[in-house]
């Protein structure tokens, strides 16, 4: 199937419908009445028991024994499970082969409770299962763990950390030209080292698993999963069961931001515990355990060297990144990608270095790579603008990439210039004082900053089913998830338009592996993939009905060629003479059909454009992003005003504008919310978010929501979000790009650039807390 033979929404639904309208969330009523059921809320299971983790106080060492005498005396205790007695998985991720077998669903190459080894602080070392939560908590508190501690390594900042290049000498893989030589001969040379604190996703709903063995070889799991198919596969591999014997349900998901994209240890351990006690078991991570249970954005340091002409045209970019990783894995965010593609620059080189420490494996967090990478690049571009003496927007226009500099391919669509222009209008950018430190509001220093945003369209594919009933109702289905992104709502809109129905006649079902398999809700892939699948499934249903019509002697379309028939608003009619046709309901009634089903595979990104890539891509795999003829990205621009108190060092964001070009926007209401949410998370990373790891003990010192600060309502200013209307025929049948991640890219730099404008001080260490601002203000500008 390719773009020439596959129907596209642009063609079949040219007339305005409900797609693109600001529909209120269809799951809104369930969410505001408390009826929406999240994964720790399935209390109906018979004999449901509660599990609680006992975690390690030390970051490295060996378990030498347990004293469970007091814990066992707690009434209601069903089991105290440790590495000595927990049923072990059929395949564990503890070896590279095992991890490969399990697949992309498992991020961490180590499963606790499989040996006596302690590799990171707060690693689970035992599980207590009891009849009530209180009994389990109490027994876990009484359980004594004897440990032989060893000196841990805390981070890349520790001199004894083992450092290595994960690409094994091949460099980061991306590069062009002779960057070192180009930099050395560049008239303007800028160099900066940027640090990004360790961040945690901290979705409001902690990770939770409710595991129920319906039969000795059949498992039902209610879990906090962004990726249904990934979790189903990883659990089935670890348990040695066929995938169809593992059912995962996630009807409502309380945020994720990447940390719920993987199957983390608590899920499989709860499943094994349920097996051990022969009862359904529920485990919800505590908030402190959320800091050591579902990954994080790694602490990292980037050095970016930028060479340019006297006029500000880029000549060279050299990027080096060092970050902390776990004792077993080599995951690092790919910051270099955005640095290599965002601007026209003939020479580019990237190096990556990891340092092993006693921490759990880091993972994808909203725009992994693009978010911290853009902080370095967009801060450096701001420096370049000041150095050359041009406006920050002008320096970006000067270096605008008319095609993807990292691949040489044309863009599928790129409306970045419009984003700059519209953002500047909405913000009032033309009123900006070109000089730093000149604008004041009373004693406060006022600064304006902006930055570019971009996020790639990853290649993905997935299935959907549509069932249209003769009475004019319909159900659409895909095993997608809605982590607050609006999947329930936007897919209802897509199905409604594709079927010519009003949205109140359509129900979209998701969050269950018995539904058609689709892509993870992550990597900004769900909207484009699932919407295309639903749309194409509807087309499949229409094709079935067209075949019925042309064979039905009582139909006005009898003996017409199927290719000559179109469906407009639920009416089957001849393309040439639209007056000749009939409504689907009349046809189905006459044919005795109560319902008709359509099924289709929708493709997103390079897989859509390139049939070859589509054949190679796996349904649960991101596929090859570079296989198509075009480079595909969402773009945007963020504008920020800050007010800095020069006596206290506090920074308040007081105005925000984001303009995003993300292809077709399915629902501007939910999309606006998502962009604001990404920007707010970016403001958090810029100004307050950091998980602090004690450099001696390798333990987190602030693993709570009182001490890990995320933005609160009073931190958030009036925000303006707009979208650029974009028609992209290359990315999928719907013309939809993702927007969940482009929303955060560049945001920290926009804040930092505004602080630079306010104070004349460049702050390159996130988060920019008052102590850092005061320190900088004490230095000469």
């Amino acid at each position: 199937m390719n773009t020439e033979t596959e129907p596209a929404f642009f063609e079949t639904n040219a007339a305005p419908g409900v797609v693109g309208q600001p529909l209120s969330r269809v799951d809104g009523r369930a969410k505001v009445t408390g009826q929406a059921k999240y994964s720790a809320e399935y209390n109906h299971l018979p004999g449901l028991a509660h599990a609680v983790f006992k975690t390690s106080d030390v970051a490295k060492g060996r378990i030498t024994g347990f004293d469970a005498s007091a814990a066992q005396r707690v009434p209601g205790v069903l089991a105290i499970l440790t590495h000595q007695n927990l049923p072990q998985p059929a395949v564990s991720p503890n070896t590279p082969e095992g991890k490969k077998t399990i697949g992309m669903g498992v991020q961490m190459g180590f499963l606790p409770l499989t040996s006596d080894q302690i590799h990171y602080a707060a690693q689970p070392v035992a599980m207590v299962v009891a009849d009530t939560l209180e009994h389990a908590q109490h027994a876990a508190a009484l359980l004594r763990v004897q440990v032989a501690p060893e000196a841990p390594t805390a981070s890349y900042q520790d001199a004894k950390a083992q450092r290595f290049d994960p690409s094994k000498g091949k460099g980061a893989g991306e590069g062009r030209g002779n960057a070192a030589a180009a930099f050395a001969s560049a008239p303007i040379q800028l160099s900066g080292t940027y640090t990004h604190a360790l961040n945690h996703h901290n979705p409001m709903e902690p990770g939770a698993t409710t595991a129920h063995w319906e039969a000795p070889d059949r498992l039902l799991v209610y879990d906090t999963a962004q990726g249904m198919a990934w979790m189903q596969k990883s659990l089935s591999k670890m348990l040695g069961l066929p995938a169809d014997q593992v059912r995962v349900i996630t009807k409502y998901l309380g945020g994720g931001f990447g940390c719920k994209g993987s199957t983390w240890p608590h899920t499989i351990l709860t499943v094994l515990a349920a097996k051990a006690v022969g009862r359904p078991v529920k485990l919800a991570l505590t908030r402190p355990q959320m800091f050591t249970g579902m990954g994080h954005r790694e602490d990292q340091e980037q050095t970016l060297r930028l060479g340019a002409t006297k006029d500000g045209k880029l000549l060279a970019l050299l990027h080096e990144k060092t970050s902390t990783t776990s004792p077993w894995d080599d995951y690092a965010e790919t910051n270099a990608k955005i640095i290599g593609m965002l601007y026209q620059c003939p020479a580019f080189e990237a190096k990556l270095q990891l340092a092993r420490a006693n921490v759990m494996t880091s993972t994808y967090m909203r725009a992994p790579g693009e978010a911290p990478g853009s902080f370095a690049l967009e801060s450096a571009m701001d420096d370049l603008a000041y150095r050359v003496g041009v406006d920050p927007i002008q320096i970006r226009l000067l270096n605008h990439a008319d095609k993807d500099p990292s691949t040489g391919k044309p863009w599928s669509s790129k409306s970045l210039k419009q984003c700059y222009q519209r953002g500047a209008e909405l913000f009032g950018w033309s009123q900006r004082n070109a000089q730093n430190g000149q604008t004041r509001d009373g004693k406060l220093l006022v600064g304006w900053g902006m930055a570019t945003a971009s996020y790639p369209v990853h290649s993905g594919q997935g299935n959907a089913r549509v069932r249209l009933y003769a009475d004019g109702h319909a159900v659409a289905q895909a095993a997608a998830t809605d982590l607050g992104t609006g999947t329930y709502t936007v897919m209802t809109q897509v199905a409604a338009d594709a079927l010519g129905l009003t949205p109140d006649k359509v129900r979209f079902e998701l969050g269950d592996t018995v539904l058609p398999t689709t892509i993870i809700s992550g990597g900004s892939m769900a909207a484009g993939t699932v919407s295309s699948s639903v749309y194409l499934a509807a087309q499949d249903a229409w094709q079935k009905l067209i075949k019925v019509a042309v064979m039905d002697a009582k139909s006005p379309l009898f003996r017409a060629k199927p290719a000559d028939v179109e469906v407009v608003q639920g009416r089957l009619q001849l393309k040439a003479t639209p007056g000749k046709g009939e409504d689907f309901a009349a046809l189905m009634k006459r044919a005795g059909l109560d319902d008709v089903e359509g099924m289709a595979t929708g493709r997103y990104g390079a897989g859509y454009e390139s049939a070859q890539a589509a054949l190679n891509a796996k349904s649960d795999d991101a596929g090859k992003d570079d296989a198509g003829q075009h480079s595909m990205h969402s773009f945007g621009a963020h504008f920020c005003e800050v007010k800095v108190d020069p006596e206290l060092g506090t920074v308040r964001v007081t105005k925000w504008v984001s303009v995003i070009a993300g292809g077709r926007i399915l629902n501007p209401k939910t999309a606006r919310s998502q962009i604001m949410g990404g920007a707010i998370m970016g403001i958090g990373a810029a100004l307050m978010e950091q998980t602090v790891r004690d450099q001696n003990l390798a333990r987190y010192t602030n693993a709570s929501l009182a001490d890990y600060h995320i933005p609160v309502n009073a931190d958030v200013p009036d925000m303006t979000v707009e979208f650029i209307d974009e028609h992209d025929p290359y990315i999928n049948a719907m013309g939809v790009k993702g927007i969940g991640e482009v929303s955060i890219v560049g945001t920290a730099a926009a804040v930092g650039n505004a602080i630079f404008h306010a104070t004349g001080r460049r702050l390159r260490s996130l988060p920019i807390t008052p102590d850092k601002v005061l320190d900088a203000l004490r230095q000469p500008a």
Partner: protein
Amino acid sequence: MQSDLFPDSDAPQPDDSSRRSFMKQAGGILGLALAPPLVAQAERLTAYSKTIEGATEVTLRVNGQARTLRIEPRVTLLDALREYLDLTGTKKGCDHGQCGACTVHVDGRRINSCLTLAVMQQGKEITTIEGLAQGEQLHPMQEAFIKHDGFQCGYCTPGQIMSGVACVKEGHAGTDAQAREWMSGNLCRCGAYANILAAVREVAQRG
């Protein structure tokens, strides 16, 4: 602005111990005293008297109905609602009074239900998110949250709505700045704050 942050003498006050308002009203020391895990609290309680160990019959008035349940005295109001009464609309985000997801009304005042024990709330009127609507008729705050898209994932939403209703009733939604401050004990990681503000202000202005 400053005066907005402190209790007025006669208006009903939030009894919540959330991050911002609690710290400002009571200072950090008391906050720390409440912070230890509830298991430890229960241990302390049992040390004083053996007689309160084990499950006893407790009657709670929830959403206008008397509900009798057998629970231990160390069971928090939040866990009593979620685990024993299957009223899972009230959410557990931190269990330590830091996020506000568990906000309910007790005798008309907003409290963090994770910071109180169920046995302490006998004889009081407890209202949860499940009790806010009148049958099919949503409370104006619920309607406003849907209209303004005051949520994404929905997990903080019941707490935000309960807090929002109380915030208006307390007279703390008179200006945008005031409402932002008095809604800051309810964290939202999806970042729906501007929409939450719009919903709370609309209900406040409607009177």
